[in-house]
């Protein structure tokens, strides 16, 4: 324990854990079931990706002449190279899964709602989260091109062609992404810079902002009613050592923050160090062990080198976009001689609509404050059901696109010899 106020404030400033978290945290927010700790798992996956990605950067060469060979070397020559590459790849897939599940949990618990402690504004974190979701997709998609094999080349050819279907700006957008008219060297270096620098930096920035907002919003929504209950019971109590600086004894007397209800509810809370840190560490270990093991067992795919002349049949987008590819193909039909092209609807308008509606949702949701931070609150039953049905539809379409689509995008059973399921991972 510090002996002077100076030592106390130094201890706070020097210890990241002490000022990243509030001094005390409610037992409810700590619970495994309230959040699944999925946001934390997403962050850990991002950390694992950053570290393994850094190693890969020393070995990968972003040139159309060398890219494929350098990845092949990584896979077959570099000591433990296939393990590092496998870990990076599986962590990328798992990050998409974790971030989506985190969104699902935030939605189902109504944790994005406007109603919160005074001064809070949780929709902000919902929006930051949506931006992070898009960044996660962007990171995965830009990384997909780098091995420069057939899988990569054609997924990106088709993907950027979908971008070109956007009205007005489509062609320019594709040109800007590719730095030309075809997927070639300029496209590779652009994707590389986006993947290794621009998008990770943006992610780090937004994640920091996201975490800071949780504290600005008075903690997780699940803890809101703990505060209310305590406030109702609380009389004018003397300030408690409930804040980081009072924990270290550097503040005498009360401040607004020190007198918040959080300070009053010792029996409802635990001190953050070590409780949050310990759980966070457990989540990290589980996430890391999973990535590392799967990275060892499953082999990241590497097909033949990219060949613009030969399109693999079928050519599939990365799995997390297959529900859209499936929609593109379902929404394409013909009336007489005119073809209704599903690309614009399935590839641009629908995803745009989904993001817009999600962004507006905190203002469309009219449920009472009591529904914030509660799983399946009865006042939110209808929206939760609709959300789950749409989610299920996307999952089913993804499964169909992944396991049931063969040559010419026709239907094949996964056990059929012509089924391309082996290219899944």
């Amino acid at each position, binding site marked *: 324990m510090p002996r002077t106020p100076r030592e106390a404030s130094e201890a706070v400033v020097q210890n990241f854990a002490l000022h990243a978290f509030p001094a005390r945290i409610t037992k409810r927010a700590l619970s495994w079931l309230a959040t699944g700790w999925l946001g934390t798992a997403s962050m850990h996956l991002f950390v694992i990706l950053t570290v393994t990605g850094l190693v890969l950067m020393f070995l990968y060469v972003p040139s159309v002449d060398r890219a494929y060979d350098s990845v092949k070397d990584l896979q077959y020559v570099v000591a433990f190279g296939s393990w590092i590459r496998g870990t990076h790849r599986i962590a990328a897939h798992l990050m998409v899964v974790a971030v989506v599940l985190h969104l699902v949990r935030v939605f189902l618990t109504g944790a994005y709602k406007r109603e919160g402690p005074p001064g809070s504004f949780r929709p902000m974190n919902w929006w930051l989260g949506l931006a992070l979701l898009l960044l996660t997709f962007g990171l995965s998609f830009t990384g997909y091109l780098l091995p420069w094999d057939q899988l990569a080349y054609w997924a990106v050819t088709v993907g950027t062609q979908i971008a070109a279907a956007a009205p007005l700006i489509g062609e320019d957008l594709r040109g800007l992404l590719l730095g*030309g008219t*075809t997927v070639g060297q300029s496209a590779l270096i652009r994707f590389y810079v986006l993947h290794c620098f621009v998008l990770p930096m943006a992610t780090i920035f937004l994640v920091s902002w996201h975490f800071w907002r949780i504290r600005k919003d008075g903690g997780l929504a699940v803890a809101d009613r703990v505060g209310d209950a305590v406030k109702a019971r609380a009389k004018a109590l003397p300030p408690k050592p409930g804040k980081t600086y009072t924990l270290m004894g550097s503040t005498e007397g009360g401040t607004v923050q020190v007198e918040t209800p959080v300070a009053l509810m010792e029996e409802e809370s635990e001190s953050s160090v070590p409780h949050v840190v310990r759980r966070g560490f457990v989540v990290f270990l589980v996430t890391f062990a999973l990535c590392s093991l799967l990275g060892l067992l499953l082999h990241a795919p590497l097909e033949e080198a990219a060949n613009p002349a030969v399109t693999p049949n079928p050519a599939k987008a990365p799995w997390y976009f297959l529900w859209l590819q499936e929609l593109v193909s379902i929404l394409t039909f013909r009336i007489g001689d005119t073809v209704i092209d599903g690309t614009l609807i399935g590839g641009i308008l629908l995803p745009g609509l989904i993001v817009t509606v999600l962004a507006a949702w905190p203002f469309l949701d009219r449920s009472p404050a009591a529904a914030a931070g509660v799983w399946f609150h009865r006042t939110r039953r209808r929206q939760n059901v609709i959300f789950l049905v749409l989610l299920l539809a996307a999952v089913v379409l993804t499964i169909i696109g992944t396991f049931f689509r063969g040559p010419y*995008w026709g239907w094949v059973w996964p056990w059929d010899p012509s089924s391309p399921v082996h290219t899944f991972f």
Partner: protein
Amino acid sequence: MKDDPPETTRRNLLWKSVVAGTGLGLLATALAWARSLSPKVLYEPPTKRRIGPPGRFPEGRTFLSEERIFVLRQGNAYRAISAVCTHLGCTVGEADGGGYHCPCHGSFFSETGTNEAGPAPRPLPWLPLTVTGGALVVDLEGEVGPDHRLEVAVEGKPQ
């Protein structure tokens, strides 16, 4: 006093011009940097390509993977059709019994290039062929009607 427009003093005029100047300067710089991302020269393969002497092509369809086209020969008449699917740009293959099939989303094009099934919004374009210095030249950006033919007298019989 309150309703008077804010007085323009020498000092705050100077201050405003500094702010405006800095802002404009930064904006111009940012635009210049952004402009650098759209290339002035593309180091991509040329769109007009020599594809070899007419005698090289056998009767019927030949796929040229480099150019992603099919060359069709009937005696002395030559035609070229693009093999780039008009849907999302995959390379189409020859379908059994004539026509073209796209592996990506299953578009089918008839022998004349007409999009008959699947998501492809337009027919496969027929490309202009010319002869230069004894070699056929195809213009990958051009388009001609399906009846366009290049007649070249070739020495020897078609293989």
